[in-house]
């Protein structure tokens, strides 16, 4: 079974530009989660999508947004990039929201803003 796949692996952008990160969940998984791991800040919850809808978001500004497609894959968009957006962005999927389902993470996209 293929795991959670993320693309690109690395992304370098200039301040002010937009970045688009992609995630394909494990087949059959309907929930997709995005996390940011910035240096020294640990893993912080960004967004949760399920069945095409945004279910929850963390404490991030509106320039962090995303969507989930009918095939359950997801995109994370970061507009007006700032230097502090440089981080590892991890995507995870689970079979369904709620009790009893673990999370599986992808390998991440390392975003560098210069």
């Amino acid at each position, binding site marked *: 079974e293929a795991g959670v796949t993320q693309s690109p692996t690395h992304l370098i952008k200039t301040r002010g530009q937009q970045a688009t990160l992609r995630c394909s969940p494990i087949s059959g998984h309907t929930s997709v989660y995005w996390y940011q791991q910035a240096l020294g800040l640990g893993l912080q919850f960004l967004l949760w999508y399920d069945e095409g809808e945004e279910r929850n978001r963390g404490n991030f500004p509106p320039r962090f947004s995303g969507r989930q497609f009918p095939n359950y894959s997801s995109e994370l968009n970061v507009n007006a990039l700032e230097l502090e957006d440089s981080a590892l962005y991890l995507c995870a999927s689970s079979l369904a929201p709620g*009790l*009893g389902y673990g999370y599986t993470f992808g390998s991440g996209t*390392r975003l560098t803003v210069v």
Partner: protein
Amino acid sequence: GIQVEQSPPDLILQEGANSTLRCNFSDSVNNLQWFHQNPWGQLINLFYIPSGTKQNGRLSATTVATERYSLLYISSSQTTDSGVYFCAVQYGNNRLAFGKGNQVVVIP
């Protein structure tokens, strides 16, 4: 929100040694997972363990939900065990909270 504390924050082990990592959480949780983040950043699921004890090779984990803690045991450590170990708890409306991690370095 829920607080997740991991200890010790940093651990240096001689290859072959055993160790115990601890995760304390401040409130009732629905589920708990242990992850290993390798040097390339990938988070690998080790255990999905809301309660009880599980073993997988040289690793085992125990969660005592009533006392709000979980332990991860590494036996006969190898250099490939190096990395950061994260405890994550699932609570409320499908929220996942991570601890700050245990940085483990195994030296040959």
